[in-house]
């Protein structure tokens, strides 16, 4: 489907961007703050031997370019240093937390895409109606809500007052479940509030983008052609309209990923969801720089990869830009 030349170019571009991210990370966490030792370990309780080990590990007395190469090597071998707080390899900690965050992001994205697109389509196809105006105003309001505050409110309403959903952790602590279904349901109940909180802001954005995109598409000539063919209104809107309207939406993928990561950090914090977001929050409180550095790198790489995927997806969806 894709020409080899195009894929090669895309890959090269990806490598360049990843390299730039590494440079940026290096500059941010090693060069700018001045004294890296301060960041790599709590200076107070370091003896000469520990300092020596750090020097070896990171090549701190070497010239900067060499340090950078060592840095790259460390990244490639998943050697992200040792956490100051937990005194364990950062890579291990990340590995443990990643699954929880991925589950949360996945669930939220499904909710955002489904609800956002459906509502956006309904609003656009009934432009000017109360449904449409309500959808637009509602989306603008959702867009203004700080994710963390929404989480706090939901905890209040559903956790403290109504007491129907759990508000922290991934599952009930100290309970062993008889079957994996019971376990899945437990996790699901714990997943409910964080997912809804995370999805809310982005649903607002999705609705607005889908709606305005579809409103544009519905003015195109081929929509009238579809109607002239005798297609029902629903078929015209969904088969001909939405298919074209999704194209601009795909281009906002990178922005979406950046937003949802930011939201995940807040949601995991508020709901004590043990993922990478919560990890970053704790690391900030305790100034655990090795974790901060590694987390930032992972998030940045994720956005870059998401960008690439959305480019490829756009190629698939829009025949006009395909490299013939």
């Amino acid at each position: 489907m894709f020409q080899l030349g195009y894929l090669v170019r895309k890959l090269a571009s990806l490598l360049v961007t990843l390299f730039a991210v590494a440079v940026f990370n290096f500059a941010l966490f090693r060069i700018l703050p001045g004294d890296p030792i301060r960041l790599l370990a709590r200076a107070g309780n370091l003896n000469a031997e520990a300092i020596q080990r750090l020097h070896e590990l990171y090549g701190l007395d070497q010239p900067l370019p060499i340090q950078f190469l060592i840095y790259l090597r460390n990244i490639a071998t998943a050697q992200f240093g040792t956490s100051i707080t937990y005194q364990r390899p950062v890579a291990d900690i990340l590995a443990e937390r990643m699954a929880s965050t991925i589950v949360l992001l996945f669930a939220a994205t499904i909710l955002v895409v489904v609800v956002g697109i459906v509502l956006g389509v309904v609003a656009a196809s009934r432009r000017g109606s109360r449904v449409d105006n309500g959808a637009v105003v509602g989306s603008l309001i959702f867009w203004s809500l700080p994710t963390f505050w929404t989480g706090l409110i939901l905890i209040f309403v559903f956790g403290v007052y109504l007491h129907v959903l759990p508000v922290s952790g991934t599952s009930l602590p100290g309970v062993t479940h008889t079957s994996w279904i019971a376990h899945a349901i437990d996790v699901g109940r714990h997943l409910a509030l964080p997912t809804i909180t995370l999805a809310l802001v982005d649903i607002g954005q999705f609705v607005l983008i889908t709606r305005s995109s579809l409103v544009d598409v519905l003015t195109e000539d081929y929509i009238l052609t579809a109607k002239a063919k005798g297609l029902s209104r629903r078929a015209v809107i969904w088969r001909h309209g939405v298919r074209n309207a999704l194209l601009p939406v795909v281009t906002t993928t990178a922005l979406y990923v950046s937003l949802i990561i930011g939201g995940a950090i807040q949601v995991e914090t508020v709901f004590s969801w043990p993922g990478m977001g919560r990890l970053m929050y704790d690391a900030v409180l305790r100034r655990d720089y090795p974790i901060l550095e590694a987390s930032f790198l992972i998030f940045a790489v994720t956005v870059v990869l998401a960008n690439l995927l959305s480019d490829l997806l756009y190629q698939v969806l829009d025949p006009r830009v395909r490299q013939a």
Partner: protein
Amino acid sequence: MSLLEVEDLSIRFRTASGFVRAVDRVSFQLERGEMLGIAGESGCGKTTTALALPRLLPETAETTSGQVRLNGRNLLGLTEREMERVRWREVAFVFQGAMNALNPVFTVGSQILEPIRLHEPETSEEAARIRADELLEQVGIPARRGREYPHQFSGGMRQRVMIAMALACRPKLLIADEPVTALDVMVQAQILELLRRLRTELGIAMILISHDLSVIAESCDRAIVMYAGRVAERGSVETIFSRPEHPYTRALIGAFPDITGERVLVDGIPGAPPDLRTPIPGCAFADRCGLVIDACRATEPLLRPMGDGHTVSCHLAGGTR
């Protein structure tokens, strides 16, 4: 019974500044296998009339009176559901400017298949695909190009695709709105030739809309000349072009240079069409007519038969030239 009978059709548009009477009591008939041309300057209501037939007008349009009878059945009285079955199967439309009339993300072949699958679901996949291929060949496009996308075709070829697509369900009536306007002269000739050939081979009745009289003169059997939403003159192409009675028709014909005739100065028609928001008491052309008399502004001229199916709406028809 004629294939198509349009009787007293009036359409107005809701706008911010009031109602615009785009079509005013238009009537005409079309027989099976006949090609009818609708001529007039832009804004005269010809496209609106055409779109009204398969009921494709936008929400802002209201049909205030009239009937559109296809084989005796008034299309204006049908529900939307019933219309969906009439569209394309009985009345197909080729739009003005095929540039954007084709969906850019679907292959050309699939867009031709779509109405077949919709209106004739009992047709097998295989049979449908064969028919789509044949349609492409019929309009002069190699069948294998059905796998390509609209942007890979030139303007003229896209128009052919539109025509192939329009024939997919073997309609009784094909309406083509300015089918050759955006194309260069050589391609124009090819497309018109194609339409004529298809009409002869398949016996489809056609309505051809154009502001370009030469297009209508070349291909149509009969023609209507519209002005300001009203029918100015109606008749066979031969009659209208050799013995035009309405001053507007004469001016229109005079406005197009004739390559074979004498060297004449081309007369543009001075003035502009009237504002369609206000009702016009007399003849709509009165302000721009060289032969205007008082009666023209006072009462609206009715369509007067001049014999041979030729009708004119002018107080002076049949009189001075």
